[in-house]
């Protein structure tokens, strides 16, 4: 008998659009209980190829032979299967088993043999990743979790490769649900999942971070998430525009991302340099005549500039994350705003004091010139 919980979870996954996860769960269900008509119907609904749909509908119809709607659907699926030639890697290829997750209709293969096949497939996925073919790796992985829904490593990899944040989170949840795991793996999965969920809370921030660090694939995934889930039409349009821009850039460029710490220091140096030049001119181009107050002010501008740049860039540097928390975590936005305010204060006050002093000197000269001309 199938657990109602598993069935509900599978239906939830299907409705949320997590096809791979849903197919894997329904596959488990029909493996345990081949008389579960609902699972066969869902499998027919989720099938990628008409051949798979025909098989699932045949199973469902065998359970309820007099169902007119099922008969009609099967007929349509058969017509569709006949009209569409088999595609590479599909279940209709002669040398591949029919891909109904977890269900093997005829002579079941020995578990050891199946395991080695799956291991080989996982190795194939890693090889694709090594040569930078993410899309191919993802396609292989999806097929792998369908045939072996208990493969934790495959779900974990899927948690990194799925295009949307919600799908990645769902894959990691699935990997965690297969536990208990060794402590290190459990911690790794939990950390990744927690991070993804935080990104889901503030996807704009996440997308911009990925963009800044040059991880355009993930940036596009985050923008895609916004485009699908945002309730504001303007926000959806903006996200789609960002995706288009990223695609255009990716199509034409091969950019190596720059270390965020280097970017932070580089950008923070700008205002400091400007202030230094002003102080030097004010001191009559004599570095020894720079006053202690000016040096303190220079320190203030440096600190303020670092704060302003860091809060503007939201780097993923571990020290920064430790200080104010990960993007989207509770209180992170407020802390960032506070630090930004402090940064502005530290930059503006020295500049203001400097201009007051310069203004007073100018006034003094003005009075002297006016007096001399009388």
């Amino acid at each position, binding site marked *: 008998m199938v657990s109602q919980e598993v069935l509900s979870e599978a239906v939830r996954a299907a409705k949320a659009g997590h096809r791979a996860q849903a197919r894997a769960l329904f596959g488990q269900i029909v493996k345990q209980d081949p008389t579960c008509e609902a699972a066969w119907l869902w499998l027919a609904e989720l099938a990628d190829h008409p051949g798979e749909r025909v098989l699932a509908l045949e199973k469902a119809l065998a359970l309820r032979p007099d169902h007119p709607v099922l008969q009609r659907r099967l007929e349509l699926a058969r017509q569709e299967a006949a009209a569409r030639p088999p595609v590479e890697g599909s279940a209709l290829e002669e040398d591949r088993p029919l891909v109904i997750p977890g269900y093997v209709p005829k002579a079941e293969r020995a578990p050891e043999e199946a395991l080695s096949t799956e291991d080989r497939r996982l190795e194939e996925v890693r090889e694709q990743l090594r040569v930078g073919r993410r899309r191919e790796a993802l396609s292989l992985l999806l097929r792998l979790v369908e045939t072996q829904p208990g493969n934790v490593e495959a779900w974990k990899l899927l948690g990194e490769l799925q295009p949307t944040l919600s799908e990645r989170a769902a894959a990691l949840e699935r990997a965690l649900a297969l536990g208990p795991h060794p402590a290190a793996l459990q911690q790794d999965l939990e950390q990744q999942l927690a991070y993804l969920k935080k990104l889901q809370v503030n996807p704009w921030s996440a997308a911009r971070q990925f963009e800044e660090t*040059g991880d355009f694939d993930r940036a596009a995934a985050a923008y895609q998430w916004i485009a699908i889930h945002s309730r504001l039409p303007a926000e959806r349009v903006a996200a789609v525009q960002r995706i288009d821009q990223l695609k255009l850039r990716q199509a034409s460029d091969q950019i190596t991302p*720059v270390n965020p710490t280097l*970017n932070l220091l580089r950008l923070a*140096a700008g205002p400091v340099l400007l202030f230094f030049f002003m102080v030097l001119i*004010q001191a009559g181009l004599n570095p020894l005549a720079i006053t202690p107050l000016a040096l303190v002010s220079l320190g203030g501008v440096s600190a303020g500039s670092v704060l302003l740049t860091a809060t503007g860039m939201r780097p993923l540097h571990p020290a920064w994350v430790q200080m104010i928390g990960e993007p989207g975590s509770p209180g992170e936005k407020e802390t960032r705003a506070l630090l930004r305010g402090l940064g502005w204060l530290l930059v503006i006050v020295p500049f203001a004091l400097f201009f007051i002093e310069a203004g007073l*000197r100018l006034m003094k*000269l*003005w009075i002297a010139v006016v007096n001399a001309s009388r």
Partner: protein
Amino acid sequence: MLPLNDPEPNRYSGFPIMTLTLILVNILVLAGQLILEPLLPARLYYLLGSVPLLVMGQEGGGALASLTSMFMHGGIFHLLGNMFFLWVFGRRVEDACGSWRFLFFYLICGFMGDLLSTLARHRSPVPSIGASGAIAGLLGAYLILYPGGRIRTLIFVWWIPVLPKIQVFWFTLYFFFIQQIIPVILGARDGVNYWAHIGGFVACIFIIFFMRPEAFARYLSNEPV
């Protein structure tokens, strides 16, 4: 030889708000000058221009006067020439930096120009005004960021105006080395502050502190900024 336009579009921002603001401020300051000049004939330039003798003696506005001198011009043609340069070279440099960072870079180039000019003429009581130092920095930054850029330029050949697109390298070679370096070597005394131009141009290397993260990554990856 006057640059008129850079036909290439922006990559990051649609509207060069800071470049246009700087142009507007320069125009307004010249208007203010023309109004105040009859009231304060020579004093205006002495007080708000950059006077090397005063700067070295730590008198007057110092850096404040250096700042105000960057926005003052000696007349409409001085302003027009500079503003064409600012528009042509500033727009895409601003695009690569972002508005506020562009403003900081512009000011740094201006201060650097003034600094070198003050060092070179440290005993001179003659005030120096104009945005040329800052704009020379923009020209240098443009050359660094867009070495393949082509500038629509107005040239008169035997009094006939022609509008060729000149590669920025040749433009810089002409504008900077022929029009600035050679007069300095020859010791020209034509009222042009060549040292400010050279100082501003040298400051163009500071552009690396102001580029957007992505533009910087592109630059390091040998991709067009």
